[in-house]
């Protein structure tokens, strides 16, 4: 769908309008602007709207910013004052701010104009992804704009009423129009696609090293898509995983598609250096891997007994050994002391060892455990 709607034209352009924001003007003057002709669906219009999304690459080369000039209000009845509004987004399509042409003002019902508080409130409304405007239909609003009604919109018997804190009184249609520009799904998708497709490997690594989870996820998805398995990129993914458990799943998905030797090296690092969640994810990955890793690899995968005191880690560890490395004396030797520890853990070890080939001395310890705890097994 994206391919049908985006026409990317790489050419620098300039704008004739001057906007209030000096910062924006500075960007316009110093940056190489890239113009993207886009087709956008706005819920206030039946047909798609053609527009120009302008990309302003930042000087550090890491994050671009974007803006688009739109009309302040979608008004089908020609009684609204319409002025251009510039909407600004970051490189993931998150709304940042809006700016107006110098001297321009937004208007409210009955020729009233926005005051400073209204402008501030509008910014807050547009920044709120969960604003009630998300769920309001334009036809619910159109019937309201010519009334003094202080209930902005409701339909059927559902009593959808916009709380005064959620709207600029007398400017419902403007709020609706601009909220749906600031949080427009088409715009967000287009900006994300541009960011993902245009980022170099170095930029993607910087994304991973940044504090932004969204950037890290975008980077890893690109890593898989581009088959980006250079040592530098893989190391960045590993470091990110060790410091941020919220991206574990995506990181494992990336790592699992690496070569056998690189996979085993990375996974061992994760087991040795990771926290409980990372270790469990790594053990689960190993349990289902199809790289035919040698038994020696698993024998070397010794975990500290303190870590094995965590039942979820122990449980996954034993399941891994059952599947990938059964009857290993080294593993038996490592875990048999756990029979004397926490009972729940000891019982898991007991059941595991019951299915392993054991030396006589190990078998004796196991029998002793059974005799002591048979009623709890």
């Amino acid at each position, binding site marked *: 769908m994206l391919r049908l709607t985006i026409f990317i034209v790489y050419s620098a352009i300039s704008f004739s309008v001057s906007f209030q924001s000096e910062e924006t003007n500075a960007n316009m003057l110093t940056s190489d602007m890239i113009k993207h002709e886009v087709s956008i669906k706005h819920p206030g219009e039946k047909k798609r709207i053609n527009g120009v999304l302008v990309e302003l690459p930042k000087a550090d080369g890491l994050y671009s910013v974007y803006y688009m000039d739109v009309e302040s209000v979608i008004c089908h009845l020609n009684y609204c004052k319409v002025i251009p509004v510039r909407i600004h987004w970051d490189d993931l399509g998150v709304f940042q701010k809006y700016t107006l042409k110098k001297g321009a003002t937004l208007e409210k019902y009955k020729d009233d104009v926005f005051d400073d508080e209204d402008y501030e409130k509008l910014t807050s409304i547009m920044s709120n992804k969960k604003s009630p405007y998300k769920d309001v239909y334009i036809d*619910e609003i159109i019937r309201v704009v010519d009334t003094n009604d202080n209930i902005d919109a409701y339909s059927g018997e559902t*009593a959808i009423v916009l709380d005064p804190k959620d709207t600029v009184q007398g400017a419902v249609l403007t709020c609706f129009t601009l909220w749906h520009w600031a949080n427009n799904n088409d715009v967000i998708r287009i900006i994300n696609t541009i960011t993902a497709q245009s980022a170099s490997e170095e930029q993607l690594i910087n994304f991973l090293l940044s504090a932004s989870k969204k950037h890290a996820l975008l980077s890893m998805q690109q890593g898989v898509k581009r088959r980006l398995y250079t040592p530098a990129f893989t190391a960045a993914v590993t470091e990110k995983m060790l410091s941020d458990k919220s991206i574990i799943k995506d990181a494992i998905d990336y790592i699992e598609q690496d070569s056998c030797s690189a996979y085993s090296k990375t996974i061992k690092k994760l087991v040795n250096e990771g926290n409980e969640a990372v270790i469990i994810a790594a053990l689960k990955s190993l349990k289902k891997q199809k790289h035919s890793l040698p038994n020696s690899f698993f024998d070397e995968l010794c975990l500290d007994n303190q870590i094995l005191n965590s039942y979820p880690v122990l449980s996954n560890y034993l399941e891994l050994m059952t599947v990938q490395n059964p009857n290993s004396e080294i593993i038996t030797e490592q875990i048999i002391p756990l029979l004397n520890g926490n*009972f729940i853990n000891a019982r898991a070890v007991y059941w595991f060892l019951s299915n392993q080939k054991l030396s006589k001395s190990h078998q004796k310890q196991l029998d002793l455990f059974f005799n002591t705890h048979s*009623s709890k097994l």
Partner: protein
Amino acid sequence: MKRRDFFKKGANAALAAGTLPLIATSCAVNQDLAYDRETDKWTQLGSSLSEIPNRTKTKNYQVAVVGGGAAGICAAVSAARNGMKVVLIQDRPVLGGNASSEMRVHLNGVNDIKGKAERETGIIEEILLHNRFENEQESYPVFDHVMYDFVVREPNITLMLNTQAINSLVKDNKIKSAICWQSTTETMFTINADIFIDCSGDGLLAASAGALYRTGREGKAEFDETYAPDKPDGWQMGATLLMSSKDMGRPIKYSPPSYVIKYTHEGASKRRKFAGYQDGIWWIEVGSDGDIIGDFENNRHKLMGYLHGVWDFIKNSGKFPEAENLALDWVGSLPCRRESRRFVGDYIVSEKDMTEHKHFYDAVAFGGWSLDEHNPGGIENISEPPSYFHYHFKKVYEFPFRALYSKNIDNLMFAGRNVSQTHIALSSSRIMATCALMGQAVGTASAICVERNVLPRTVAKSHINELQEQLMRDDAFIPNRPSNDSDDLARKASLIFSSSTKTGDAKKLLNGISRDIDGEINHWMSDGLHAEVQLEWESPITLSKVEVKCDTNVKRNIMMRKDSRNDELFSNHNPVEMLKHATLHGRIQGKWVKLAVVKDNKTRLVKFNFETSKCTAIRLICEETYGAKDVKLFELRCYA
């Protein structure tokens, strides 16, 4: 003796006009009775047999539920599932009441608290989910059949349609029998039961039994209600007649019928809006200052006139050019009622119980629809807003069990708009899904009454914990009342953990709160699928049931709407978050054994039933949802 009792009651009772006129004037003269059919000889031409048909029947049940709307269905199903032999008596040919295809009101509940729903769970959610799975086309007549299926598949329920409970036999302050007329079979039924539950809205059975009730509006002073009128009056919110239209793709002319009442919108309140008019206009509404039940047929006729008057205004005033291609596709003939009798219980819920969020020791239900009091006069008073929407709740309020049984008829309970509350409280709690929660509460309470041989008042005094625990086990939610079921063996587990966690914690599955609420997380959500939750017990335990509450996104509405709205707040399909496939394993003597499998699950409360087994651990493997990448659960319980 019983027969004489009946005649005595019959002479005094307020009966529905036109239902059985002979009964209403009955004295002890046998030939006046409609079911005395000695002259009615039925000759079968095929067999040449001639006989007097038997048109009187007596049936015995443990619980009799009158009224087959959302509240009545939930009352009947909960009583039946808790082991009662139940009869559900409904005076219409379809179930669903205001939500049925006869009336087509959206089955609203707590639709919008700070921009999100706080949806009702339990039986009403099960019905709405059943509809989402079996009625993807969002057809109202099919919804009738979905509800029919939901009821008749319960083995303990006998459903009587086209049957109205018109009178009662009362002895020692208890209803012994409901006298019911089934119009399609010309049969008079005497229904004997231990417990009667009136969910009929107007409450004819309860009224005929002499249960105390109120109508009209309380004055401010009586309950210290901010939004009540200064002085009490007789006004009751009106009934609405709905309609829907369709776009024919070409201009369609419209001429109003002879009974139209002209509508001009002149002088109308600005709040009297037309948004969404193509799916009906809720303010086509007429109420009453007096006997709203007695006025019903007059009001129905007026409403039909107003409906066409408003549609004529839309089609022919020139103010709605977009309506040129619209044609009426369905018009209601049965107005959707909001208010009539409110029976008096041991507690009368009032405005401040709701707005000040009073905590009730006997809370069994909750609500959160706005205080949505429609104006006196309805469409006959158009200069006023159609509703005042006095107050919008920021969180849900509790509803107590003591408002759900009669103060003076000992074995009578209620659910729905006829419960013990003020007019202002009714303006919020009358919403169908809220009524349905009350229904599940009284249905469950009826089982406790019968099993323990006690009356509802005793349940409130001595068995409220049992009632609340059973409700929560059956997936009802009670605000500020975490479950603490001593039979739940999951709570005795030494350890619970999950294979992955994106948000929440597996330990939250045991905290007794089955939804995220008041900003608190009470769930475990996996990071991807498959995902597992495991419980370990120090010693083997005997298990035969594991019950899980999965996510159905109670923050988003799922009831059917005419506009098929599908956005953050409303959906037009089953929730993608729901658990679809799952397998339960138990560790028996050191080996993992498959105990139960659930495929194509369609409920929030997922039950795994299996042969009694001795396990030291269980592992729930969540394999697939209906589209969500992660699975979210709210509760896990284990029972012997």
